[in-house]
């Protein structure tokens, strides 16, 4: 039934627009999928929820395809999940093998993308049935575990990541209290009655802050001039990367399900695994095709993985999923175990569109590679003012007031400073989105139990989840973290 929805001309058009735009911003360094999705989110209020989700998802997995092009040809990641692709992809380009590198990245992404859609299809429904039995204590525990995992996996500092999560929760309390109807932290400002919007925050942190950050980056980009006629990998290339693509798809999907296990982490994990599995690890860093195929598959597969908890539990595991969560909420759809039974059109429409979108991406990436190389020549001095304008107009259009623009600029400055001082924005955004559910879970649980915290430990599911969270956080304080994957990152940067 999903295909009936996807094949409606309007959805086909938006799916194409999504993946096209996604590839475009994936190719362009300086603006990532999170920023773009927030901008587009402002402009999709009027279209139907299915169409809007199809468009926004298309941007994300499109960006995963596009990012590899920049990594391979310029040695600059087009977006964060393609950082590792630079290591071997650029080396391949220097050896005159840019074509096969680009080709294997696109085919690997396609295989992994298709795999993750199928896995998503089979996993979401049973999991959502399981989650139907969840009450307020389970939701509270689930969110605490999710945020702990996210902070644990934070690349820089656990304490700072936790601080950002707590700050995100605090921000989510601004506005009318859902239970008592009391205005909290609004200072009588009418614009704050509904709370701070997710869009000004996300656009500030991922759009404006990105622009500020990149203003200081060097301007020059050297595009590798190479023969792009032969994009098809040869038989040996396929033989070398078949294992990498399979492992990358599986690993990416699993990492994507974990809160905090973003596409970025998936690609690093896959690179580390490939290096360890390889019979000739010394080739890595000198143009090993597995080093391109694995991570590029993993970062695509991670998106499908991330949709599992979003659709089955209503818990977004990454920033992009948090934005999709916000998009669904804006259309009056509550993500959670009831989503698939109550809005099957949204879920199956999206699944079908992802099959189709991946095929479209293969078509627009391989023959049109020349076009994307041209896109790379757009200088950042032209790009950044345009991104800023899009952010301003986008935020302005939500409520036709400059109040939100001010909030966005505030978070732009904050995001810029946070980046400079090693505070990560992802926990903030996720905690902000999950704050209301968590608070409701806690307050209802306490009412149910008559004020006793034991309710969280007498119910098996919540007890398990909370124990895991506590163990996780304690372990990182007492033991040195096993940071194999992250060490890989430090070496590469």
């Amino acid at each position, binding site marked *: 039934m999903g295909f009936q929805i996807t094949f409606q001309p309007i959805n086909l058009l938006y799916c194409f627009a999504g993946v096209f735009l996604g590839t475009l911003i994936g190719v362009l360094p300086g603006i990532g999928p999170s920023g773009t999705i927030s901008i587009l989110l402002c402009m999709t209020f009027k279209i139907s929820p299915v169409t809007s989700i199809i468009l926004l998802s298309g941007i994300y997995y499109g960006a995963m395809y596009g990012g590899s092009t920049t990594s391979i040809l310029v040695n600059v990641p087009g977006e964060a999940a393609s950082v590792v692709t630079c290591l071997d992809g650029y080396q391949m380009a220097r050896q005159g093998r840019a074509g096969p590198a680009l080709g294997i990245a696109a085919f690997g992404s396609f295989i992994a993308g298709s795999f993750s859609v199928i896995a998503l299809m089979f996993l979401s429904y049973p999991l959502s049935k399981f989650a139907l039995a969840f009450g307020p204590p389970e939701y509270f525990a689930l969110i605490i575990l999710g945020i702990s995992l996210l902070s644990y996996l934070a690349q820089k500092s656990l*304490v700072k990541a936790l601080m950002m999560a707590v700050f995100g929760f605090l921000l989510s309390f601004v506005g009318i209290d859902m239970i008592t109807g009391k205005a*909290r*932290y609004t200072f009588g400002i009418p614009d704050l009655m509904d709370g701070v919007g997710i869009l000004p925050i996300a656009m500030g942190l991922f759009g404006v802050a990105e622009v500020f950050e990149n203003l*200081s980056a060097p301007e020059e980009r050297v595009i590798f001039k190479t023969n792009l006629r032969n994009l098809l990998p040869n038989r040996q290339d396929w033989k070398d990367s078949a294992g990498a693509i399979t492992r990358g798809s599986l690993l990416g999907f699993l990492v994507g399900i974990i809160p905090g296990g973003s596409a970025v982490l998936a690609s690093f994990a896959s690179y580390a695994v490939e290096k360890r599995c390889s019979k000739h690890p010394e080739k890595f860093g000198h143009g090993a095709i597995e080093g391109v195929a694995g991570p590029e598959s993993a970062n695509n597969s991670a998106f499908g993985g991330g949709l599992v908890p979003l659709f089955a539990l209503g818990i977004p595991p990454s920033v992009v999923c948090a934005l999709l969560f916000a998009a669904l909420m804006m259309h009056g759809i509550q993500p959670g175990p009831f989503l698939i039974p109550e809005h099957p059109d949204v879920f199956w429409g999206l699944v079908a569109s992802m099959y189709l979108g991946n095929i479209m991406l293969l078509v627009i990436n391989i023959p049109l590679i020349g076009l994307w190389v041209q896109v790379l020549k757009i200088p950042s001095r032209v790009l950044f003012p345009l991104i800023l304008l899009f952010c301003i107009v986008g935020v302005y259009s939500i409520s036709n007031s400059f109040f939100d623009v001010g909030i966005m600029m505030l978070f732009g400055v904050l995001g810029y400073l946070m980046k400079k001082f090693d505070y990560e924005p992802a926990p903030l955004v996720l905690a902000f989105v999950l704050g209301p559910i968590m608070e409701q879970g806690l307050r209802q649980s306490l009412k149910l139990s008559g004020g006793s915290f034991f309710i969280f430990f007498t119910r098996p599911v919540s007890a398990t989840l909370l124990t895991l969270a506590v163990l996780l956080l304690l372990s990182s304080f007492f033991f040195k973290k096993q940071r194999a994957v992250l060490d890989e990152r430090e070496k590469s940067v």
Partner: protein
Amino acid sequence: MMRRKESEVVGSFFWMAIGIFFAVGGVKLNVGTLRNPGPGFLPVIMALVLIFFSLFTLVKGLIISSVRPVSGFPWKRPALMIASVFFYGLLLELVGFLLSTFITMFILFGLLRGKSSWTMVFIYAAITALAGWLVFSVALNIPFPSPRLITIWR
């Protein structure tokens, strides 16, 4: 140039201040009881957690010996950009979308001009303003404020 140590300490105080702000506000909102938690219940808990963590980073910041400076911290161009956005907000109400966008984009492109000439900056700004007007105002129908000073174009 700020050093690592100083930046950690300043950051800790910043988050501590935010924590205290939310804690005080939460207490005023009525914390309630465990049996019946009020609107200020979770905000106070979270604010206390934030204060606790900021004390942790403060102590950590004070004992680290590293005096490695924070990598380059340019603030002039971001500050100018923020100023121009603020200016854009004022201008939009006065002269409408088309003209204010042109002026602001002229400033922004000018700020990042690099080697290109002012003529190019002028052309870029004009194209952006026109295209933006067509897309946002005509196609997407976003209601921008009607200009108070000049009423030729919206």
